């Protein structure tokens, strides 16, 4: 989707190294989210943001930090990558949070970042 891009699309990194994933939006949406998708676990919320410099933890936030210094960018950082953080990471945006409703539903998701920690 042109309104939200994630970078990189694929990354292989070594255990113990820091990694930063980027989510960039052009929709000027207030809310941004990071989820991870793993087999047998579905989509689990890592962190989310409800405005510039306003962030909060999700269900699986340990080992992750986030920053949002401007509306369009939401960064996810793995301070010291571990093999358990091998996953597909999805960013999502929303203009009014989880209850946006309408034809666009709650969120618009990016295409994902496949991260492998070796």
């Amino acid at each position, binding site marked *: 989707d042109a309104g939200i891009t994630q970078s990189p699309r694929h990354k292989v990194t070594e255990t113990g190294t820091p990694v930063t994933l980027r989510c960039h939006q052009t929709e000027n949406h207030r809310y941004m989210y990071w989820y991870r998708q793993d087999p047998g676990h*579905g989509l689990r919320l890592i962190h989310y943001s409800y405005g510039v410099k306003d962030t909060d933890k999700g269900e699986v936030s340990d080992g992750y930090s986030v920053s949002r210094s401007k509306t369009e960018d939401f960064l996810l950082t793995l301070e010291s990558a571990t093999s358990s953080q091998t996953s597909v990471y999805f960013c999502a945006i929303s203009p009014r949070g*989880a209850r946006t409703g309408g034809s666009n539903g709650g969120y618009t998701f*990016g295409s994902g970042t496949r991260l492998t920690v070796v």
Partner: protein
Amino acid sequence: DQQVKQNSPSLSVQEGRISILNCDYTNSMFDYFLWYKKYPAEGPTFLISISSIKDKNEDGRFTVFLNKSAKHLSLHIVPSQPGDSAVYFCAASAGNQAGTALIFGKGTTLSVSS
């Protein structure tokens, strides 16, 4: 402790028949429910939603039914098409408050054969 449960990891259906995907939830505060579809190597895309004030919402071939007393919702696809083969996620939210995020189930992989 899963709040949104999709107990069937997979479902196989023939083209033209009905597909029924099920979802159960435990949090009685959930009052808005959505279904997302996901193809490989793509992000999930919104399919259909329903508010707790309704028990049915229809959009073309897709209908979502909500049974609040049973804390159960289902997605019906009629008729099913091969292009419907994807992973379907059920999601829910509680209240319209800042910071309320969608909670997702584990997903059901639907395979529609021609």
